[in-house]
C-alpha cells in the first residue's frame, strides 16, 4: 500500500508527521540531515502561515520559507503519539 505524501507546507500548526522524502540538492540535503530533517524523522509544525513554517525537529525549532517547506514531503497520515 503506497502512502500518500504531501509537502510539509500544507500542514497545520500542532500536527506531527514523518518525513518521507526530501527533494533537494546534495549540499542542502546533507545540511538538512545534519539538522535532523531526513526520511523517517518526526517533525512537528509549531506555526504556519501561507506555507512558510516554524517546525520542531528533535527538540530544535527551525523556520522554513514556503519554497523550502515545499521540498520536504511527509506522510499524509499524520500521527499523534508514538507509531
Amino acid at each position: 500500500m503506497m502512502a500518500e505524501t504531501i509537502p510539509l507546507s500544507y500542514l497545520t500548526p500542532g500536527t506531527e508527521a514523518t518525513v518521507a522524502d526530501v527533494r533537494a540538492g546534495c549540499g542542502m540535503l546533507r545540511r538538512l540531515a545534519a539538522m535532523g530533517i531526513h526520511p523517517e524523522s518526526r517533525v512537528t509544525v509549531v506555526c504556519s502561515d501561507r506555507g512558510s513554517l516554524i517546525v520542531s525537529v528533535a527538540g530544535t525549532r527551525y523556520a522554513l520559507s514556503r519554497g523550502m517547506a515545499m521540498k520536504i514531503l511527509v506522510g499524509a497520515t499524520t500521527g499523534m503519539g508514538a507509531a
Partner: protein
Amino acid sequence: MKKIRIALAGNPNVGKSTIFNVLTGSRQHVGNWPGVTVEKKSGFAKYQDYEIEIVDLPGTYSLTAYSIDEVVARDYIIDEKPDVVIHVVDATNFERNLYLTTQLMELGVPLVMALNMSDMAEKNGTAINRSSMKKFFEIPVVRTVGSKAEGLDELLRAAVHEAETSPHHEHAIGYGDTIERSISDLGAAIGNDPALAARYPPRWLAIRLLEGDENAKEKLSGSQAQAHVLALLEKADLDQTEAEMADRRYGVIGALLPQVCTTCVKEMNSSDLIDRVITDRYLGIPIFLALMWGAFQLTFAVATPFMTAIDELFGYCGAVLAGSGIEPAWLMSLLGDGIIGGVGSVIIFLPNIFILLFLLALLEDSGYLARAAFVMDRLMYAIGLPGKSFIPMLIGFGCNVPAIMATRSIEDKSDRLITILINPFMSCGARLPVFVLLAGVFFPANAGNVVFILYVLGIVVAIASAWLFRKTILPGKPAPFLMEMPPYRLPTLFTSVRHMWDRGYMYLRKAGGIILAGALIVWFLATFPYGVEYGSADSYAGMLGHLLQPLFAPLGFDWKIAVALLFGFIAKEIVVGSMGVLYGAGDDEGSLAAALLADPSFGPVTAFALMVFVLLYMPCIAALAVIKKETGSWKWTIFSVGYGIAVAYLLAFIIVHAAPMLIGGI
C-alpha cells in the same frame, strides 16, 4: 610547563564562544583562517602546570563539507591534530547535537563532551544521564554552564587527562554489511599510500568518500592510491549509500537517546506560543516595525546627553589649547583644528553607534531577531533578497563595516554579494553629523522629519538597487529560507555588551586610525602652502576644490563642498569637519551654521541635494576595505564605488533641477 592544544567544536548557538571567552579571558586573538573569510579565534588558558592553547572552531551542524565553516573545522582537526577536541553540546537541544558527535567520533580524535546550558535543561525538566553517556561513548562527559562559568575547571581537567592518556578508542558505527565491505575495500586502497593513510584516518576518509564528499576527493589528488580509490568509488551506488549512512547514524542516536535521556521533552513550550504571536501573518511586520521604532528612538534619546557631554569636553579642550599659547602657530593649529576638531567630530557619534549596536545585540540574544528575519523573508524574497540579509542591513544603520562582515552567515554567493553591495545605502552613524548640521540649519522646524526621510530614502534606494541587480547583473532567486530559531531567552547584560563590543570596536579602530589620519591630511591641505589663510581658496585644499568644481557645478555645489565630499571618501564624518575648515568656522558649529546661511549659493535645496549625495555616494574607505576583503574581488569593490557615485549624482541632480519647478508650481 607542559603545552596542550585544544579545539572547541560544536553546533552553532551552543554557547561555545561563551566557554571560550571565559577560559581565555583577555588572552585571545581573533584572526582569519588562511585563504578564507572565516574568523579564527584562538587563545590561551592555564590549568595547573599546563599551558593550554585553545582554538574556537566555527560552529557547524556536521563535518560534511557543505559550507566553508565545516571544511575549516574539520581540516583543523585532521591537519593540525589538536591534543583534545572539546565537543560542546547544548543540553536543551540534545538530540540534534548528537549527529556531530557521531562524526567527531569517527574522526578518532581524543574527545571530551561538555554538556553545556545544563541549568536551562534542568529547568526544562530534561534529565541527561551522564554516566550512561560515558559508558556508551567511552568519553568523559562534563556538566557545564558556560554563562555562569560552572564546570569549566572539571572540563579542563578531563581534557588534560584525555590528552595525556592513550590509547584512544576509535568509535565505530556499524553501517551494515554491504557498506562496511565498501569501507574496508576503500580503506585498504587508501592504506596502500602510507603518507595518505598517516594524514587521514583511512576509515574516516573512506566513509567521507562514500558520502560523496567533494572536499574529501580533493584530498586524494597527488596520491598514488587515487586511481584505485576512484575506480572503487565508481562501482558503488553513492546516492543509496549516502542515504543509508545517514539512516544508520540516526538509528544509533535513536537507540541511544532513551537510555541516556529519559525526559527529552518535545512538547510545545512558551517559546512556541510566543512565536504564534510574533510570526502572525498580520501582526508580524507591525510588531517588528514597532520594535525598530523603539530601538532607534531609545538610541537617539539616550545618546543625546552623552553627545552633549562629549561636545562640551572637546570645546573645553579647545579652549584650554587656545589659551595655552603653544608655539609655533602651526602646531597649535594642528592640535586644535586638526586633531581636536577632526577626531572630535567622530567621537561625538560614538554613543549613538554603540547604543544602537547594544540594542540590536539585546534583540539578537533574546532570539527575536531570528524571527524578524523570518517575518521579513517573505517581503525580501519579492525584491530578490534572502531573509538572512536582514540582520546585516540592520547593523548597517550603526556602521557598515561590521554589517558587511555579518553577511558571512549567508551561504549563497549571489545573495551575499547583493547584500554587500546594497549595504552602504543603509545610513550609517557616520553620516548623521552631516544630516544633523544641514537639516538643523536649513530646515530648523522639520529637522527630525528631514533626517527620517533621508533614512527612508536610503532604504528605498537599497531595495530598488537589489531589484535592479537581480534583473540585470546578478539574476536568480534568493536561496530558500532555512534558519534555526533559538528559544526565546532573557539576554544577559554581559553577553549583549560583549556582542556590542565585538561589532563596535571596528568603528573605534576606524576612528583612531583612518579618521585621525584623514583629519591630519585635511588640516595639512588647508594650511599649506605656508602662510595662507587657513582653509581659504589659496590653500592646497582650495586649489583642489577649484579643480573639482566643474564636476559638481551642475549640482550647484561650489568648490568648498567639492573638497568636503572628496575628504568624505576617507570617512563620512570628515565632511562636516572639512566644511568647518573651509568656511573658516573652525570646530564651532554655531559659526559654521552662520557661515552656511550667509553663503548666497547655499540654500535649502542645495542642502537637501548635498545630504542625499552624502547619503548615497560611495562607501567610506573602511567600508571599501571590508567589501574588498569579503568579496575578494576588485571588480565588485570598484563597482560599488562607481554605482554609488552614479546614483548619488543622479538623485542630487534631479533634486536640484526639479525642486525649483515643484516649489514654483506650488
